[in-house]
């Protein structure tokens, strides 16, 4: 029996990728058809099988209602959030409300939580790795956008567990990319990772000093990605079509899917060839029964104008990251581009303008994150690290300020954003009534002093401390952010030093029971073999 192995998985909004480090050399694992990236699409077939990957993506049109894509946009979100409302309007699959304001997906005769969908993607990655390596894979390092909050990280971790993987660590995508770039190079540089994915945008500024990778700051936008570029093309096509034929393609979910596919293809073509010919024969039927085609030509200039404001938005985020790191664009020694949309010439030119230097070539924007995760996976498994020292150390930060709710809808900052993790901080609370036997606090993440502008992580209730007059009992609450960026809360009675019991009374996550049920369900779901 050879020793343990851990893979690195880049769980993306649109595409996922799996890699492994063998003898210190990371490499991407292809599937049986030689594909290196796999669409994060899950299609539920009528025979009860589940199809995941690039084949499932073809089903977005033919099996639209039972094919789930871009689930990462919904992970760890509450049902009432704007992102969920937006997804409901455009997604052909059913998005319904679950217990505790959570989000559920309705496909065929079952309802699934978002982590269960992501788990199926992870299960496929696991299967690809197992087929290629010819052995069982039980452990993994999974990446998530740096700007993900605690709910989203927790949900990603749950997804791993449901898929039967022990998630050794959740690491940030830009950090993983930097690790893959600087690993074993013995350089001292300040670098910027510009990570524009399918659904999220992240910027991290890192200082690499030999074997230490210190994240100086990170900033991002979890509502900005390549999908938004597609949307602009779709809107343009649909408006033109509406003018020409008086029919709105966006009203029909089937037409909308065809439109979306055309938009995505046009974006890739215009980026590669400078011009895109769009042709979707028979996109819809007029009320008179006439079959209509969609044809258009998209020029580079026109596309650039359409998305200029989106590109500008990414640089506002860059400004923020540089400011937090107390650097200017000129201080950055190298820029790494991550994510498929960074292939677009408009992104490359704008990045060159902003940083006054060419982005690094020779880094594959689709694979670099998985490679970094694989390096970290191998490092976390090595027992020799403790004795001989490890080859690299990631010093990451928390992307968002941690806050507690106070009176009147305001919040108070406990841990600043861009603080190195793991970290802990304590705050003392006192009782406000005589004989009070429980204290409730609400924990938030975000940059607004109003709780409405922040994301609620959960409500914690402490009981089992001494009972006394108001103001007499002091409870020290310790907030800890661990290496995964996940928040833990514990409390002790300050005078007696006794730990109080903590219960989470409000949370977007899955309960232990739900999790167990999901693990069993997932084990029962069979991945469909691909049709030749």
């Amino acid at each position, binding site marked *: 029996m050879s020793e343990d192995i851990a893979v690195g998985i880049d769980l993306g909004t649109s595409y996922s990728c799996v890699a492994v480090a063998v003898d210190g050399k990371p490499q991407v694992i292809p599937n049986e058809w030689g594909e290196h990236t796999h669409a994060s699409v899950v299609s539920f077939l009528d025979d009860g099988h589940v199809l995941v990957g690039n084949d499932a993506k073809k089903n977005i049109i033919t099996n639209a209602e039972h094919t789930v894509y871009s689930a990462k946009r919904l992970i760890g979100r509450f049902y009432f959030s704007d992102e969920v409302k937006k997804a409901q309007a455009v997604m052909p699959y059913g998005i319904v409300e679950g217990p505790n304001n959570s989000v559920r997906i309705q496909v065929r005769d079952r309802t699934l939580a978002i982590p269960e969908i992501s788990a199926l993607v992870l299960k496929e990655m696991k299967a690809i790795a197992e087929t290629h390596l010819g052995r069982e894979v039980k452990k993994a390092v999974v990446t998530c956008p740096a700007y993900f909050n605690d709910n989203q990280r927790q949900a990603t971790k749950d997804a791993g567990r449901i898929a039967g993987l022990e998630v*050794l*660590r959740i690491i940030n995508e830009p950090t993983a990319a930097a690790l893959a770039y600087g690993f074993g190079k013995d350089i001292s540089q300040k670098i910027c990772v510009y990570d524009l994915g399918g659904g999220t945008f992240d910027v991290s500024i890192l200082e690499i*000093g030999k*074997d*230490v990778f*210190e994240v100086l700051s990170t900033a991002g936008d979890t509502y900005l990605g390549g999908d938004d570029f597609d949307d602009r093309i779709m809107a343009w096509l649909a408006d033109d079509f509406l003018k020409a034929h008086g029919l709105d393609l966006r009203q029909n979910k089937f037409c909308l899917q065809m439109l979306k596919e055309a938009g995505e293809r046009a974006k890739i073509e215009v980026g590669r060839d400078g011009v895109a010919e769009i042709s979707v024969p028979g996109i819809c039927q007029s009320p008179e029964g006439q079959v209509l085609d969609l044809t258009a030509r998209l020029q580079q200039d026109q596309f650039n104008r359409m998305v200029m404001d989106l590109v500008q938005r990414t640089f506002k985020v860059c400004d923020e990251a540089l400011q937090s790191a107390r650097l200017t664009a000129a201080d950055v020694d190298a820029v790494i581009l991550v994510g498929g949309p960074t292939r677009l010439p408009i992104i490359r030119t704008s990045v060159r303008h902003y940083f006054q230097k060419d982005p690094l070539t020779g880094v594959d924007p689709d694979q670099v994150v998985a490679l970094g995760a694989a390096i*970290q996976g191998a*490092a*976390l*498994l*090595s*027992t020799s*690290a*403790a*004795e001989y*020292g*490890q080859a690299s*150390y*990631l*010093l990451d930060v928390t992307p968002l300020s941690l806050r507690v709710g106070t009176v009147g809808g305001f919040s108070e900052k406990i841990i*600043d954003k861009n*603080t*190195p*993790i*793991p*970290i*802990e*901080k304590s*705050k003392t609370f006192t009782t406000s009534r005589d004989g009070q036997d429980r204290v409730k606090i609400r924990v938030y993440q975000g940059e607004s002093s109003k709780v409405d502008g922040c994301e609620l992580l959960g409500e914690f209730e402490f009981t089992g401390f001494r009972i006394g007059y108001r103001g007499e009992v002091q409870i020290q609450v310790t907030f*800890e952010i661990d*290496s995964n960026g996940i928040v833990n809360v514990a409390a002790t009675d300050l005078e007696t030093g006794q730990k109080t019991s903590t219960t989470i009374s409000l949370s977007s996550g899955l309960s232990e029971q739900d999790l167990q049920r999901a693990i069993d369900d997932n084990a029962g779901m069979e991945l469909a073999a691909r049709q030749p």
Partner: protein
Amino acid sequence: MDAQFLIEIETLAAVLDQLDYYGVLKLQQGAGAADVKAAYYRESRAYHPDRFAAVESAELKELIGRIYRRINEAYTVLRDDQKRVRYLADVTGPDRARKLRFTEAEEAAVSQEQKKKLEEQFGQTPNGRKFYATAALELKAERWEAAERALKSALMYEPGNPKFKEQLAAVQAELEKTRVKGDYRIK
């Protein structure tokens, strides 16, 4: 893992609450930003939890976790120029035993100080700031009389502002220099 390192970890974890942040990072008191960063990297290489991720003992991991969280805490405070100054004053002062960890009270004090400094520099009242800004523009253009007028107006709103007074004195000295010397009175 050798026994010596284990003992080292146990002793460090035991005395953690008696150490100040300089002690945690094994630095001389009063070390500067560059030293702090170098020390942080050095200590990270030794105590980063990733190094011990594959170690069986949960107890050891807990100790390492405690040490490393404190290292991060120390770094967060000492890397910040303002906080470092304040912290150094705290731990070298009489209240040392209570001030080993930088708490929210100190955090608030630092931001308060920061605010006060800014206010002194640019004025505390809207009108004071407005006139002071005008004065700064006139000064740049070397229109001394106009600058003097603006500063006097600013001082009407904030009579006690030391920065304004200092500027006014400087402007008046300039004016004195440019004033035509000699007897100019009409006979």
